[in-house]
């Protein structure tokens, strides 16, 4: 059973103000689509606010996995038998769904990988190794996840290249002028996050990409924290590469996507060697397969790709605009409610934010807060969120992070706020 978006009814407002939360999504029905939300944790209803780490999965996704294994399990591209044909067709259909979802120009531009991490490593190890040489530069930002730092460090170390880091201000907003001035004649690639997983900052990608392109530099976007929260259009962004993980967008772990512009992907050497990525092999010479298979060596996560397709269809059915509006409202409400608790300091107050509320509580270490909230059934993430340089920038070892998904409610934010107040009492 899938919840469907109700048409947005704009009732006339007495003073012309839009209703606080437009009734575009039927939250009760959406919540019923996610079996795990019925779990009780320490005797309390689960309040799952760790969606930036991984999201929960709707029944549509669980069913897609079960259905695949029950009715079409076979290897793809390899058999003439019926099951193999079914599996291949379903896998191809999932790729088309991804293409549509991010509005790529061509299904061949959609490479299935394990997740955002593998997508970024793929680009660093193929495009990067060809184009980045001694003395060259790779430009990232101060708010990257470790997975958009370390692959570039490995590359720079190997090549004798330099990693440059564009700074941010105290709100967690990128300093666009500084970013622009760091794109120099030796810059070979820019790698930036769309949305910061530690701060929630949404970066001004259109401007950033235009700045880089004006200097002929391609841009990789880490979209792991963006794709779940609002509509992404890779052609409108004009990014050269876009990486995201399925498990953060309601699909299972083990599947993710690298989008790349076809001309770039065509010119890149393969990533891993093996079956499926070749056209022909002799001991003297191997001819590589066409896109996207050139980058998909070995038997892929077939069920995962199909389930990712199901997840993207599910949220498309709800409407990305509706999801964005709902989560925007939740985040604003959370910032107001949690921010008003004495002793709470919000970390990351960029004007454009999505999905994430990071904060510290005076006198209570985030780790202790996490344990106390867990007793109340509330799951949040505490720590450095795989973004240690961000923590350093703000001079803190860790934050507590509540992160939102389509199924979260204002009532859950209230439960979170009550839990934070309890923690204050314990430690006062």
């Amino acid at each position, binding site marked *: 059973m899938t919840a469907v978006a109700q048409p947005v009814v704009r009732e006339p407002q007495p003073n012309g103000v839009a209703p606080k939360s437009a009734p575009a999504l039927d939250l009760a029905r959406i919540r019923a689509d996610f079996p795990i939300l019925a779990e009780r944790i320490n005797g309390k209803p689960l309040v799952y606010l760790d969606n930036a780490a991984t999201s929960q999965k709707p029944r549509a996704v669980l069913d897609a996995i079960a259905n695949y294994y029950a009715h079409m399990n076979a290897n793809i591209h390899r058999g003439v038998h019926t099951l193999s044909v079914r599996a291949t067709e379903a896998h191809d259909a999932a790729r088309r769904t991804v293409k549509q979802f991010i509005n790529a120009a061509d299904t061949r531009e959609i490479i299935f990988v394990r997740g955002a991490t593998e997508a970024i490593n793929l680009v660093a190890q193929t495009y990067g190794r060809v184009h980045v040489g001694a003395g060259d530069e790779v430009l990232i930002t101060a708010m990257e996840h470790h997975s958009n730092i370390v692959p570039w460090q490995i590359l720079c170390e190997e090549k004798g290249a330099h990693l440059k880091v564009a700074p941010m201000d105290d709100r967690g907003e990128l300093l666009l002028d500084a970013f622009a001035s760091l794109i120099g004649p030796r810059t070979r690639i820019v790698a930036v996050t769309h949305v910061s997983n530690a701060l929630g900052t949404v970066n001004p990608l259109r401007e950033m990409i235009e700045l880089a392109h004006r200097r002929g530099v391609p841009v990789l976007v880490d979209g792991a924290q963006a794709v779940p929260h609002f509509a992404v259009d890779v052609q409108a962004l004009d990014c050269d590469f876009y990486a995201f993980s399925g498990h953060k967008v309601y699909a299972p772990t083990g599947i993710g996507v690298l989008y790349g512009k076809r001309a770039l992907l065509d010119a890149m050497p393969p990533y891993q060697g093996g079956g499926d990525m070749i056209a022909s092999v002799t001991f003297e010479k191997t001819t590589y397969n066409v896109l996207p298979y050139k980058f998909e060596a070995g038997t892929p996560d077939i069920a995962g790709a199909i389930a990712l397709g199901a997840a993207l269809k599910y949220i498309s059915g709800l409407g990305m605009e509706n999801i964005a509006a709902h989560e925007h409202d939740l985040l604003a409400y959370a910032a107001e409610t949690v921010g008003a608790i004495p002793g709470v300091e919000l970390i990351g107050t960029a004007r454009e934010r999505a999905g994430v509320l990071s904060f510290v509580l005076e006198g*209570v270490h985030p780790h202790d807060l996490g*344990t106390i909230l867990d007793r109340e059934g509330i799951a949040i993430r505490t720590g450095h969120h795989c973004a240690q340089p961000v923590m350093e920038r703000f001079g803190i070892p860790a934050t507590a992070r509540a992160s939102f998904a389509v199924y979260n409610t204002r009532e859950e934010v209230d439960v979170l706020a009550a839990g934070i107040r309890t923690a204050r009492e314990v430690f006062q």
Partner: protein
Amino acid sequence: MSADLGELGDLYQEVILEHSKAPRNFRKPASANHHAEGFNPLCGDRCSVYLDVEDGAIKDIGFEGSGCAISRASASMMTQALKGKSTEEAAKLFEEFHNLVTGDAEAMKNAAELGKLAAFGGVSKFPARVKCATLAWHTLQSALEDKEETVSTE
């Protein structure tokens, strides 16, 4: 703290909360001749342990660092428990403490022998917090062995 916290109360016992707010021996003794750094990469907790060891006995001990209530209290109470002890006694105490916080039945039964440290018995119900309770101890072990690299709980 309020009494209705259930298992939370087992974790955050009065003595633990008290030490976390006012840690003892939170300093670097001038006479220190052993030192090690500990780090829990998951939560960013850091701990430096300093020892003045003479003739196999811990004459003075101190610690510095930042961390959660459990790791601060554990470090603080560890320094109190170890001052004046021999290095062998320290190693044995670590073993008993480790057994206690990981829920070893025997250790739980004999917890009283650990004195104040018995307060950490509640940690065993919170597996995610065991590393917080043992960070200082692992760092101590490394300091006694004069290990160069930072101890990591991962």
